[in-house]
């Protein structure tokens, strides 16, 4: 095997960040400190296997793109995306597939003009308060770091708040924008990707009423009822509201729930195929958790099961995990999701109406 996990070559396929090699034992290629609880040898073995996959994918992608920063939408590309976008092509693919590139090109200078606008003091303060609370375990976000991303994060979030007044700033967006900056290393691109996510790909998760988020939590409940009924019954028996266990899954798009590499693979599909992927991931995780959930004796124990999903081979082996999400939950059409979203939304509105 030519590629070493921590060697120069691997950076090309994982992340092009210039994380100094001496830090490699401590931090991963995105700058995150490696958790002390993780079995590093097993993880490294997994990653070196994965690098072989990435190298193969990288060659295929380079051939497909042929130097262009464009991507057509067709079955072949969809298959390619599902098999993973190598990090060197990630920005280009995310930008092209999501429509963010088109937005950027049609609105030259717009991002920078937003930074010049007079911003609301309150908006500035709430964003400011979260800067040091965004990935404190990532060396790129430390204020002591040479090219600290905190300023870039502040700019992107502030510009976004000025741009989309309905949303302004909502906690969770700091983590999403943070990931976008780690990958694109470009404020303007991160801004347009964030906009595409919030306006086009996701329903209204982050608006003050968080209606889209509430609805999607219920949609997941309905899907679990149909596809993993035993879990649904256990949740009902212990009176666990879905929001208690899955709100972070949706709000943070699996950041901090799943390992970085796995999250990025999910986002590849999110930008290309849309929000349906979030349910595929959720259903796969819940199916995997089923034995523990069924054994749980109380609400806290159920919550604990949902917390424990963050580690272990099942979620770290991102390539296999991504294969599973397209197989295990079975068919899941966008038409079904759309219909469920409508039903759940109406139900929530009716309930809140009857309470007020």
């Amino acid at each position, binding site marked *: 095997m030519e590629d070493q996990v921590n060697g120069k070559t691997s950076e090309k396929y994982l992340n092009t960040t210039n994380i100094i090699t001496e830090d490699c034992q401590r931090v991963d290629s995105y700058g995150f400190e490696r958790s002390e609880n993780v079995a590093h040898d097993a993880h490294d073995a997994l990653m070196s296997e994965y690098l072989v996959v990435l190298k193969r994918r990288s060659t295929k992608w380079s051939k497909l793109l042929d130097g262009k920063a464009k991507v057509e939408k067709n079955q072949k590309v969809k298959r390619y995306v599902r098999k993973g976008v190598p990090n060197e092509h990630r920005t280009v693919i995310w930008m092209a597939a999501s429509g963010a590139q088109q937005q950027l090109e049609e609105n030259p200078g717009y991002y920078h003009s937003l930074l010049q606008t007079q911003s609301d003091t309150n908006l500035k303060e709430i964003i400011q*308060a979260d800067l040091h*609370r965004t990935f404190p375990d990532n060396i790129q976000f430390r204020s002591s770091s040479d090219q600290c991303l905190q300023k870039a994060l502040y700019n992107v979030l502030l510009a976004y708040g000025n741009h989309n007044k309905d949303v302004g700033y909502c906690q969770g967006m700091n983590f999403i924008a943070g990931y976008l900056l780690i990958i694109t290393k470009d404020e303007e691109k991160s801004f347009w990707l964030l906009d595409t996510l919030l306006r086009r790909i996701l329903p209204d998760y982050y*608006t*003050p009423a*968080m209606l889209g*988020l509430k609805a999607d939590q219920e949609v997941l409940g309905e899907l679990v009822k149909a596809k993993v009924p035993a879990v649904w019954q256990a949740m009902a028996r212990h009176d666990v509201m879905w929001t208690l266990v899955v709100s972070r899954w949706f709000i943070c798009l699996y950041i*901090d729930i799943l390992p970085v590499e796995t999250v990025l693979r999910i986002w590849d599909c999110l930008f290309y195929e849309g929000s349906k992927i979030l349910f595929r991931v959720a259903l796969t995780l819940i199916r995997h958790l089923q034995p523990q959930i069924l054994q749980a004796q109380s*609400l*806290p124990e159920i919550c604990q099961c949902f917390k424990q999903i963050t580690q272990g081979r099942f979620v770290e082996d991102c390539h296999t995990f991504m294969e599973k999400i397209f197989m295990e939950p079975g068919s899941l059409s966008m038409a079904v999701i759309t219909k469920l979203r409508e039903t759940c939304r109406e139900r929530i509105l009716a309930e809140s109406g009857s309470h007020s």
Partner: protein
Amino acid sequence: MGSDEAYNFVFKVVLIGESGVGKSNLLSRFTKNEFNHDSRTTIGVEFSTRTVQLRGLTIKAQIWDTAGLERYRAITSAYYRGAVGALLVYDISKHLTYESAERWLKELYDHADPHIVVMLVGNKTDLASVRAVPTEDAKDFAEKNGLLFMETSALESTNVEAAFNNVLEEIHKKVSSKEVTRGSINAVSLSNPKSQSEESQEEKKPCCKNL
């Protein structure tokens, strides 16, 4: 934190207050004796438990923590369900976080049991040099509103134990004096939802298991 632990009561206590006042650190100081300078923004709902001895009784405190940002209240009504105690936290160095106490109190009484035990907590006394909220003001406000009051520092570990223990003790007083009506405040509902109607806040035998 094992499920086979014997206890007399489970009390659910919620932490509320503006973003950045130190709710998560109060929780980790109390349940794990940890303080994290670089804690992450809390998203969604987190909880942690600690078992304490109080007047010869074993009390399992289940403390819930959530995001402080206003719009998260849209999804956190489930958070208040079954809560018998609350710590309404503000930052003594940021007056705005204190000013919002009234709003939080309303939010709490809108969703939680009317008999819930509430303590107003002025956190970050380690920042006394930049204090913006005089102790007397907060004390007066607490008295007027029938709240317990204490100032804490999760960083220096000052009064954190005392604050939580006070709240737990008050809850126990209410529960044992039956001041709270059956079914209204339900100290054991979290561990044993099925027995809600018969058992309610009846004291469980020390031999009881968390079934």
